[in-house]
């Protein structure tokens, strides 16, 4: 499936238009043949059998019309199904593989990969809040005030980085902020979009559940351009909740659960067993 947002409505319009044109063409062929047959009857002129009549028609006459019809319909349904599946998938908000262009071509592979910067250095609230949050521009400036990436651009500042400098009103030549410059936030394109009806909290997963960022977001440290790694469908959430265990030992909140496990000589309790599949854990 394509990662970008092609316009589905345009595509649908083209398909409908093509079908209508085909139908009109078929009608015209039928009318033409009808007219020729009438002409033939009326004029009684012997006409040389055409290529179609000589070679194709006898073969076609030998085919079973029911099977042919079924095959054609089957083929059409198949095509429509494949299209519809793909269409419906994106329509309900499944955007796995979605990798939109960002206002600044930010390379995660350099930062998280090559540099090995911890995810939460920039996404500071992932462990504290519902949102992992995109870092504010001043976080970028912590490093990029100094790291101006001039090596690959013949001594000039990287044009991508220049966008950051402009947004915060920073002059790389003097390495100082221009107090009078108009600053503006960077308008990043959101990749992971949950529907409003689902409540997701990062801190629950990052801090309490000790889930690695990569579990859901994939090998971010290798992505030059970030794409949506998981489906973010409910089934995907639920599967994980069914498999993953809770670290009951190291959190006093789960003290009672831990005691009971010990009493029952159990060693593993999944999120699901602790009520993690119940509707109002995520929907309210």
């Amino acid at each position: 499936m394509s990662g970008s947002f092609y316009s589905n409505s345009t595509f649908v319009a083209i398909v409908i238009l093509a079908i209508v044109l085909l139908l009109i063409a078929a009608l015209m062929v039928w009318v033409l043949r009808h007219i020729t047959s009438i002409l033939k009857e009326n004029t009684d002129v012997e006409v040389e059998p055409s290529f179609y009549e000589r070679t194709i028609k006898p073969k076609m006459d030998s085919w079973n019309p029911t099977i042919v019809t079924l095959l054609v319909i089957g083929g059409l349904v198949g095509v429509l199904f494949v299209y519809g599946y793909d269409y419906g998938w994106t329509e309900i908000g499944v955007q796995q593989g979605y990798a939109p262009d960002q206002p600044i071509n930010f390379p995660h592979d350099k930062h998280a990969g090559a540099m090995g910067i911890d995810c939460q250095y920039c996404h500071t609230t992932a462990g504290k809040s519902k949102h992992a949050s995109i870092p504010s521009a001043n976080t970028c400036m912590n490093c990029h005030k100094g790291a101006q990436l001039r090596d690959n651009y013949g001594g000039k500042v990287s044009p991508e980085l220049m966008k950051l400098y402009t947004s915060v009103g920073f002059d790389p030549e003097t390495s100082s902020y221009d107090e009078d410059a108009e600053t503006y936030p960077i308008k990043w394109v959101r990749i992971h979009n949950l529907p409003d009806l689902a409540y997701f909290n990062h801190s629950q997963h990052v801090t309490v559940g000790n889930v690695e960022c990569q579990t859901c977001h994939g090998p971010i440290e290798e992505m030059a351009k970030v794409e949506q790694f998981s489906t973010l469908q409910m089934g995907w959430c639920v599967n994980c909740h069914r498999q993953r265990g809770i670290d009951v030992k190291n959190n006093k909140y789960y003290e009672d659960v831990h005691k009971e496990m010990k009493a029952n000589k159990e060693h593993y309790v999944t999120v699901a067993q602790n009520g993690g599949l119940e509707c109002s854990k995520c929907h309210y």
Partner: protein
Amino acid sequence: MSNSENKYWRGIEELEANPATLENVSNEFSDKLPMEEILGDSEELSSNRRDFLKFFGFSVSAVALAACNKTPVKYAMPYINKPEEVTPGQALYYATTCGVHNEGFPVMAKVREGRPIKLDGNPNSPLSQGAMSAAGQASILSLYDVNRLPHPKIDGEDEEDWKNVDKKVNSILAGAAGKPVYVVSRTVTSPILKASIEKFMEAHNATHVVYDPISYSGITKANQESFGQAVIPSYNFDKADVIVSFGADFLGTWISPTKFTADYSKNRVPTPEKPEMSKHYQIESLLSLTGTNADYRYSIPASKQGKYLVSLYNMLSSGSGELELPGNALKQIAAELKAANGRALVVCGSNDKNDQVIVNAINDLLGSYGNTINLSASMNLSDYDEAAFESFVSKAGSAGAIVMLGANPVYSYNNGTKLVAALAKVPVISTAMVVDESSNGAAVHAPTNHTLESWDVYQPMNGHYVTSQPVISKVFNTRSAAESLRAWAGEDIAMGDDQASHQWVVDYLKGLGVDANKALHDGFVDQTPSASSATFAGSVSAASSAINANYKASTGFDLALYQKVGILDGNSALNPWCHELPDPVTKVTYDNYVSISRHDAETNEWEQGDIVKVSANGVEIDALPLMIQPGQARGVIGIALGYGRNVQTTLDNDLVDLGKNAYPFVQSSATGTNYMVQNVTIEKVDSGYEFAQTQTHHMIEGRDYLREATIDEYKENNAVRNEHKFETVSLWSDYDYSKGHHWAMAIDMNACTGCGSCVVSCHIENNVPVVGRTEVRRRRDMHWLRIDRYYSFEADADETASVRVGPSNVDQDFKKGEWSTKENELAGLDKVSKKGDKDFGHYDSVKVVHQPVMCQHCDHAPCETVCPVLATTHSSEGLNQMTYNRCIGTKYCGNNCPYKVRRFNWFRYNKNSKFDYHFNNELGRMVLNPDVTVRSRGVMEKCSFCVQNIQMAKLNAKIENRKVKDGDAQTACAKACPSNAIVFGDRNDPNSRIAKMFKNDRSYKMLEEVGTDPSVLYLTKIRNRKEEVQHS
């Protein structure tokens, strides 16, 4: 053994088995589709099978086409410089103020990503005690009001630059040379604004005039006379064992209702250790919210109130008085007041100085001063002096300039038209946030900030300073009135960015000798002086002879003008939450009306919904609907103030032109303001008005939902009315809830006053849509939490003995095969009303119970078993979960719910011009709680026990590596409740308050016998009264 003697009913239509009401009861989701409107009634147009196929085909293709939208691209915009304290997704709480009852009510504002979304009472201040009134909670919407002026205006033209505004004001003031300049404000409790006004007065030789729509001058003048202190004292209802209120609605609208409710309820809950509670007598003409909570209530004509006060005084001092209440009650009251030995309190809602002098004399006799009344910690509620204002009105026309500082006398002054004529001649400078009646046509509009955008200090109570800090950056180009006044006084300070205001606040707090940062953090500084005793120096004889001289028998009706709990003086006219909240007593939404006693209505052959013309003293209201109100005194009609506002608005909804303005009836002169009018005539002009009244929505058809007993019965048996325990048999294999959490709620009906604060709180917290008057009429209100109000007659035990009312005769009735059949109950109800009293005397005095009802989170929930798509399910924590995205809207669950708490979402209420309330504009939507889904049409919704807060509490505990503490998870209703009637928590936590409630003998579950096993407990209502009829 006696059962609950009372037969409860919600309205006369239910009592008399009105056919329309009965039909409504049997058709829960009443309205048929308005096919006639769409198709007309022609035969040809009725649809047949082919039409069905056409519609079907059309809808399929329409849906297919409508689905052809590409998923929108969403953006995420981070800060440029993230403020240190902000964590996106986490709420911050700031102590600040709101200005509804008294200016400077201490609140905690919940702020998400820079916008306040909820106000709760400041838990530590004695004024709020963590709670907040319905109107106060709703006031947050005035911040996001689209009617607010976005920037200043000069001569009607928009102006962005405040310097030009100042220039224009200065030129007006310069042109006023020689003529008087007035500053008209409401009572100012902010010392900072006061200082600014003084600077302005000095600079322009101006006069400050205070105008309040509701006057308390009777009290201040009486205290001046009695004690030499022109103050409104603070009353301590928690210290009173006997409370007598003459028409003072102190739980609803009088002086400081939130504080009074909190105090009052402290002494209203008997426990096995201390089976005592205060005794409350209410003697009034209209049935007020306070009256509904009284142990004994007597209706008297409003005009005789003063004479009753004198009689009570005489009984206390000399043992006999002129007037008496039925059953020699006044004598009894006098005896009990004396016996209370200083723990007594008499209050009076009258604004007549003489009445209040008598009240002071009574309280002095009882030794209340220094105990239940504190003159030192006076309430700075009103400095309104009628004489000063009248003199302003007479001279206003010749003034050089008038600064309207938030006062709106054109609307609420009884001679507003005279004032309009005067104002038309004078350049008016207004600081109002919206264009109201008084600033309509002002030369300069210099809109002030909203309280939530301002730095300020208020002193609502003597010695109690409440701080205000901005919790949002300014929404519009506004400037605080204090700064504006200083600018116009010629001071050269940094204006507009609040630097100056902040500095004034810090300086002022330093002046009080406190740490400014700590004070701003706490939200208040408490230096309240302790109560001192006072010596009464007034003249009782002068006051009582004045009362006797002023009393004239009325030739028509007495008109009592009152305030409604949600609307108050009418300041929040365009706040939909205030209007969607049903009146606590009548359960009417949106309208004001003429309330009348049953007797008077029957005598004049008037019916509920008749439209009447009311006239008195040359003032007239041409059409108001008539509302028959049980419990109302004969010869008295009541009309609520605060309606008929005329605010400039772009909205097109039910709040525009709502009700009729009753302020012109107010008797105001230089000597005082009186809200009681005599010699009123009523004339029926039309009939058939349909109220948007919720009282007969979701009737529970006479089943066992209420339990009440007297204090004596309680002393004998703590489990009175709850002795009968039902044996339940379950069809399902039971789930073990003993592990983990088991959330539950308890509602103490002894503490609950029915004030409606929880209803509004729930609305705000859970993004409940406002549906408007028409939809309420169709019984489609969306309240997740409603307060049922039941009436019962004073002594009807004998007549109703045959009607099944309590749980104790269930067994017998069940054997007789008569249990819970609808016909039986309604026949019984009918019988009560036909008990032969053509005088309708039994309607003069009714007992009232308020019962908040929300989803009961039944552990055997009937709704869950009937949902065909499993959209409503049960959680292991005992929650009845509602999953909107699964719901297909069959409404089976709502049908099967015995408590009628599920609400069907009939329309998309957001982005829908038919419902032009705050859901439909960008600004209004800022108040939405981002943690709760905004539901779309076609789904069921209901109380979730504020599961978002439960989840947050659990998560915080996990992050902090601890267990959930009692009180971590709170529902919005429990937080808002001024009387702490609602307790929420984890019943599996043995130390929680809720676990103790489950052990309380007073607790019962509603409709226990149907075996739903609810998670909500109710605590039997105990009344401090002798039961008049005991039958075996």
